């Protein structure tokens, strides 16, 4: 639903709808939701949020008209660097990587990282140190994620990354995770929406929101910094944050520092590594994620093969009602997006049955591919010449024996090439399961890329790993086929 709204926004934000005058094109993710940027519930073609009002404030100061450009949250850095918009504003955290690769504005809001737990656990889970071996949710590629990775090394906390900031709290409420670490804006909203959760008073870290511009765009950045300082002094920023119920005592202190000529404080997790150092540091995590991708793909393919064979047998040999029912199942599974199926399995069924993420991913991929495999097997079964089945009957084989000894093995040979094809496709489709918190190869790569602010090296490493997984498989399949076709 949110994706549809986001698409609608992109369409409506096209030049035909824009007002006259020079524009300030600003990028954000309407999926991020309130209070940052979200579709206006009363008019989904409009966006509302504090970042929307800050964009308005900046545009006014520059004598321009703001125009919203929808960009996925994790793509905002790359889009800023490419110059897809003038400035990115979407609750974007000040990080060392961003400062080194982009033109970054002064901070306009300071937040604390808060640990949210269930009320019943309030006494035992006070800090990250209390959560050894426990699953703690957060958003990927954020300051909170970096803090969790540190806590993983120090205390054995298990980080679980989400793609959105709503499901960490709903999953905490139903017990899938034991805590959530996110900034106070999200934490306050999470507690408000989910009764039974509380925020711990201990501050796990401090960060701030900034605007992102293309690296060469320092002239515009400096003008925007001026406008922000002005708005800090004349109370317009305070008015915006009061409207969104985000104003607190941390802000006047931040504004005093910034307008008093004090240097901008460095971000807390300041690990400005070279690309090479970062690649070395991320390599073990990428290899682990590649292992998860491989394990998940192999298990899902095994499930798809077994189920696919059962479905194909039912469609070829079963009575008419069974054939009709199986055909319907195949069409429904093939005809709906895998992403949707994963959401339904993991989040949709959560009130009925809480599947662990890996199991839900395995089931989603396995069931989806079973539908495709069953069609391959059905076609292959029907391609085995009827005459051989007649011959089998005259020799006294039962239908089951003829399937197992004669029809099945020949169908399997016909199916091998398309199956290999499907396995390679599955290997890549497995990247979709990151939406249900499984950190596989692509997700780990995008975290890596977000951290160093570039996709080039992480992308190449990721591609090399996918190829390393799929090429040997294709070779094995070709060798098997050659063995069958021996002269």
């Amino acid at each position, binding site marked *: 639903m949110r994706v549809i709204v986001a698409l609608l926004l992109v369409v409506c934000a096209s030049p035909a709808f824009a007002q006259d005058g020079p524009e300030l094109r600003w990028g954000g993710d309407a999926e991020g939701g309130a209070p940052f940027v979200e579709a206006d519930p009363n008019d989904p073609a409009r966006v509302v949020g504090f970042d929307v009002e800050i964009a308005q404030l900046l545009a006014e100061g520059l004598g321009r008209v703001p125009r919203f450009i929808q960009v996925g949250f994790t793509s905002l850095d790359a889009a800023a660097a490419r110059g897809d918009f003038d400035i990115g504003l979407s609750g974007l955290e000040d990080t060392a990587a961003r400062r080194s690769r982009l033109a970054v504005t002064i901070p306009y809001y300071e937040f604390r990282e808060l640990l949210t737990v269930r009320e019943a656990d309030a006494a035992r889970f006070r800090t990250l140190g209390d959560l050894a071996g426990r699953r703690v949710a957060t958003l990927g590629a954020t300051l909170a994620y970096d803090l969790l990775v540190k806590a993983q090394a120090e205390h054995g906390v298990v980080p679980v990354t989400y793609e959105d900031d709503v499901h960490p709290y709903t999953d905490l409420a139903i017990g899938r995770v034991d805590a959530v670490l996110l900034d106070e804006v999200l934490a306050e909203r999470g507690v408000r929406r989910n009764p039974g959760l509380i925020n711990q008073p201990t501050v796990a870290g401090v960060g701030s929101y900034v605007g992102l511009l293309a690296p060469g765009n320092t002239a515009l950045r400096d003008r925007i910094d001026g406008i922000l300082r002005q708005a800090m002094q004349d109370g317009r920023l305070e008015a915006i944050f009061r409207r969104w119920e985000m104003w607190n005592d941390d802000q006047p202190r931040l504004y005093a520092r910034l307008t008093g000529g004090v240097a901008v404080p460095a971000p807390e997790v300041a690990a400005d590594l070279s690309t090479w150092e970062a690649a070395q540091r991320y390599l073990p995590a990428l290899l682990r994620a590649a292992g998860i991708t491989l394990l998940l793909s192999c298990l899902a393919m095994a499930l798809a093969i077994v189920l696919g064979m059962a479905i194909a047998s039912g469609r070829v040999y079963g009575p008419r009602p069974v054939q009709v029912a199986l055909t319907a199942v195949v069409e429904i599974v093939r005809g709906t997006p895998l992403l949707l199926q994963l959401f339904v399995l993991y989040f949709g069924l959560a009130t009925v049955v809480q599947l662990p993420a890996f199991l839900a991913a395995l089931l989603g991929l396995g069931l989806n591919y079973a539908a495709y495999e069953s069609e391959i097997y059905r076609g292959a079964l029907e391609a085995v010449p009827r005459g*051989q089945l007649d011959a089998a009957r005259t020799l*006294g084989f039962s239908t089951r024996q003829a399937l197992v000894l004669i029809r099945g*093995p020949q169908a399997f040979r016909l199916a091998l090439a398309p199956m290999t094809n499907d396995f390679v496709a599955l290997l890549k489709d497995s990247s979709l399961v990151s939406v249900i918190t499984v950190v596989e190869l692509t997700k780990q790569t995008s975290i890596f890329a977000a951290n160093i602010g570039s996709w080039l090296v992480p992308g190449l490493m990721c591609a090399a790993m996918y190829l390393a997984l799929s090429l040997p498989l294709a070779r094995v399949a070709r060798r098997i086929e050659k063995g069958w076709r021996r002269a």
Partner: protein
Amino acid sequence: MAPGMTLLAVEGLELRRDARTIVSDLSFSVSRGDRVALMGASGTGKTTVLRAIAGLEPLSAGSISVDSARLAASSPTDAQARELQQRVGMVFQFHHLFAHMTAIHNVWLAPVHVLRQPRAEAERRARLLLERLGVAHRADALPHELSGGEAQRVAIARALAVNPALLLMDEPTASLDPARRGELAATLCELSADGTALLVATHDAEFARACAQRILLLDGGRISRDGPAAEVLA
């Protein structure tokens, strides 16, 4: 049952494909050890009759008995068809060898999985059968590597491996050159000496004369002539 007694009895048989009647009120019998050729122009239903005797076609009317097994149109069951199939072997015009198995594997598969013979014993007997049919040297070849004549001999060996009382053959000379036809006729004569009855559908008069003692002439869905080869083909 002594040789000479009735092995196959077809009584009042009617076969249809959709609305079309292929044969109707067809009756004939074949005795143990008989070599019978079923002849007639193309499209008269020779193949369909053989398939019905092999339990592969639904009967619209009448019955087929082989030995003590009886398949009737009035109450057909899979079990009855299986009973019939255990007594009848069939060699198809296009052989239909199992494409993923070697020649010898084609031959021992049914003895092992249907007759439950031990694998070693079944393989030994399969090799003997291939030797007898002159294709032992091709035992390890895959079907697509065999010539038409070789594939046919392997198919005969496969059908004989389950010890059928009646062997059906559909157009066995279609893929053979004249020299091979003579060889095949001789081989079939030898087989019938063991007591296996033969019913061969063919339109090859020369082969019928060389192989069969008796000719059934199928015309318009009925037997129009039934007698010794010398008489019918005169």
